[in-house]
Every structure is written in structure tokens, then in C-alpha cells.
């Protein structure tokens, strides 16, 4: 079973990387970009039937740092 976990910095947490990418886009001449936030996509291949609670535990214990990050779990099938 393919699962995708999206990890993002929480709103309000400064994202220097996103800011640098934003500046770079502007430097390339792209206009109208209001903001850029860089997150992380983690693809997992897990046993069929792995329940949501287990996936949530994986996120809370390792994949995301919930002090600064939020996560969403998407089934990719």
C-alpha cells in the first residue's frame, strides 16, 4: 500500500528556505508570487491494511516534529 505523508512547517513558523526560493523565483523574473513555503513529501510502501492510527504514530514519533510541523497522510492508490 502506497502512502504519502506531507510534512509542512506550521503557519507562523519562519521558513528561511521558502524565503530564499521566493527570492530566487523573483530573480528569474517570475512575478506575482506572494509566498513560498517548502515542505517535505515522504512516500511509504506499507503493508496492506496498515491503519491510520499506526501511520499517525509514525508521523508523530519521527516523520514530523509536531513542535514546528504539521502533517497530512494521503493514501496514494
Amino acid at each position: 500500500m502506497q502512502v504519502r505523508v506531507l510534512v509542512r512547517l506550521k503557519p507562523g513558523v519562519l521558513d528561511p528556505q521558502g524565503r530564499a526560493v521566493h527570492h530566487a523565483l523573483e530573480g528569474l523574473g517570475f512575478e506575482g508570487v506572494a509566498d513560498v513555503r517548502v515542505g517535505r513529501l515522504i512516500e511509504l510502501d506499507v503493508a496492506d491494511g496498515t491503519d491510520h492510527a499506526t501511520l499517525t504514530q509514525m508521523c508523530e514519533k519521527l516523520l514530523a516534529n509536531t513542535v514546528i510541523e504539521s502533517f497530512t497522510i494521503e493514501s496514494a492508490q
Partner: protein
Amino acid sequence: MAFRAAVITFPGSNCDRDMASALAAVSGSPAIRVWHGDADLPDNLDLIALPGGFSYGDYLRSGAMAATSPIMRAVVAASSRGVPVLGVCNGFQVLTEAQLLPGALLRNAGQRFLCRTVALTVENTTSPFTAGYRAGETIRIPVAHHDGNYYADAETLDMLEGEGRVAFRYNEAVNGSARDIAGVLSANGRVLGMMPHPERAIEPAAVAALGGSDGRRLFESILASFATA
């Protein structure tokens, strides 16, 4: 009785020798080197030190992988028994990831790796790590980090300040840290995490060009608390 300090080495630690050397220089006893894959710590430790570096290549987040290593379960258990734990730089990041300290360390606000000596104000002088300093004193300690931007929510920051758990504060904005926090203590004062490197500032004044000697008193403080314990 000799002072017994353990220095943990993770894959990618690069300040473990400096830490061991500083501890030996100040205490007169060699530090015990412990590998991250070990499940157990030596008995009767007086200090556990988590050194700087780039454990696991900073994969996922700085300190995240190291926090899951077998030895960290032993460190958490030892900490709960009151063994003092010092985390410097990457060691601080590991301590937050292991939830021995609140908050997290983000990428520096200026996006650049910082490597220079900075001025700090000593905010807390009641912990085993800081008792040798004077409250409000300015000290100079080197920093060398990319992810040193301390973050915690406002409620947590208020709690840390209210409980006197901010150990050191930068005298100027260095890396974007909330309220210029450079080091924080656990609720019982026996866990200290800090981004600056005291182990790089222990030489006598004669070779102060190598980082100064203001870090030395941190180790002397630990030793003094050991002697009176």
C-alpha cells in the same frame, strides 16, 4: 572519587573529541566514549554529554535520527534519574528531538551557516552547569551551526522565562532565535541544551585566540556540583 562523564558519539558527530578533551582537561579524568548503537550507558555517571556535529547527516531534521538511536533510550532513562545531561549544538538538537527539552531548532533566519565567536548573557546561575557564572555576565563562546534558530510557541517561551530556564541569551540577533535564546534548561535544571560550543573555549587566556576561556567555567560548574553532591 573520579568524575565520570560519558560522551556519546553518533555517526556524523564531529565535536565528540573536543568535548572529551575539554572534560578531561577540566576534570582530570578521561571521559568515557559511548557509541550510539550501545543499548546501555556505563554505571554511576556524573554527566552525559551529547556533542556537536551532523549526526546522520542531518537527515529528516537535525537530531531527529539520533534521537531514535538505542543509546538515547538509556540517556532519557538516566536523565529521569537525575544524571546531568549537556547537549551542545547538534546535541541540543538531539535533546529537543528526544523531548528532553522543549522547542525546536530551525534553519538560521539568515539561511547561512554561522561560524564565529558571539557574546552571550548568562541568565541563569542556579543550575549545575551555570553556577560558576555571575548573573547578567557577558561571556564569549564560539558558535558553528546552520540550524540554531530556537523556536517554541509563545506560551512555552513565557514558561521558560518565568521559570528561569533560559540559561544563555545572545547579546545580538545571531540566528533568528526566539527572544535571542542560546541555551535552555529542563524543569529540574539538570538538562542543558545550548548552540554555542563551551568545549571550544576552555584554553587559558594565553591562547584565547583559539576561542577564549569563558566555556571553561561551565565544566568547572559541573565539577563543583559533583564535588558537593
